[in-house]
């Protein structure tokens, strides 16, 4: 791979890191201002390392839902990482260290970023650049947020809650544009997920979306 290609991957990753870092800061701050000790968000981010599950688990804890419900909610949200792991298994290859370490780095952003690349070498580079950078930035952000507490204010003011969906849009759009079968499946899946959201626990809607694959059809995508 040329240096220019790697530089481009780092440049594109950096924005995801920046957005995630700020979300990490807000996660640390929310947990601590809610009354949890500093080590809870910090350790959780290192060993769980899944933003949406961490927010939900801490949200359940702070709302008085109890640790059991918090763990179940987080696990339900993270079942999707099993599908991601299967999708990127090829990228991680056969090496033991690469598989054991790579598995922990599987997140929405990194999987989307890796799958968006046009060839295997770039997919592999994208996975590790995005994955390692995101892990470093996310955990640093959470630590800073936990130490700073509530001094930050409401991150919603800066529109950051729109950044994460926008990152996903930018990453999946090339595939959706090129592949009609995936596009049909994804549209049906998203509609199903939205339809069931008011009625089911967090984490279930995106799993329901997989039913959209019935439209994927039996032939190779165009």
């Amino acid at each position, binding site marked *: 791979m040329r240096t220019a290609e790697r530089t481009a991957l780092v440049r594109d990753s950096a924005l*995801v890191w920046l957005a995630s870092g700020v979300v990490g800061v807000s996660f640390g701050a929310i947990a601590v201002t809610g009354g949890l000790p500093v080590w809870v968000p910090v350790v959780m981010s290192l*060993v*769980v390392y899944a933003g949406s599950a961490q927010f939900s688990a801490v949200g359940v804890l702070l709302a008085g839902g109890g640790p059991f419900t918090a763990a179940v909610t987080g696990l339900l949200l993270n079942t999707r*990482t099993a*599908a991601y*792991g299967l999708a990127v298994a090829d990228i991680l290859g056969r090496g033991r260290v690469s598989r054991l370490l*790579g598995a922990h780095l599987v997140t929405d952003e990194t999987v989307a970023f890796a*799958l968006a690349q046009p060839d295997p070498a770039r997919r592999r580079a994208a996975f590790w650049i995005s994955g390692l950078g995101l892990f470093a930035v996310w955990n640093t952000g959470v630590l800073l947020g936990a130490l700073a507490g509530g001094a930050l204010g409401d991150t919603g003011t800066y529109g950051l809650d729109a950044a994460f*969906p926008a990152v996903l849009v930018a990453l999946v759009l090339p595939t959706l544009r090129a592949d009609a079968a995936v596009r049909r499946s*994804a549209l049906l899946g998203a509609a199903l997920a939205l339809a069931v959201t008011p009625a089911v626990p967090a984490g279930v809607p995106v799993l329901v979306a997989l039913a959209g694959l019935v439209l994927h059809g039996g032939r190779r995508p165009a």
Partner: protein
Amino acid sequence: MSPTVAMILTLAVGTYAFRLVGPVLHGRIAIPPRVQELLSAGAIVLLVALLATGSLTEGDGFAGWARPAGVLVGAVLAWRRAPFVVVVLGAAAATAVLRAAGVG
């Protein structure tokens, strides 16, 4: 062990187990091309569902107009093949401006 520690450990071990399924199975069982194709499609379907629910909902209700409007601005920019940075910052900026203007 405190209940909070138990919660964090359960979540960590369970999540890691989910993540490890694919990499561990890889190379041990032969995944037919059709299944591999469905797995890749499935990952995209999950991501699109996540961006749809993440744009439009908060908890089990509507997230308000500012966020989906910002994401829509990002989607239009991405469709016009704007650079990644422009897409993401455009979405956040649009949402921030709408909020500053009093849109929820």
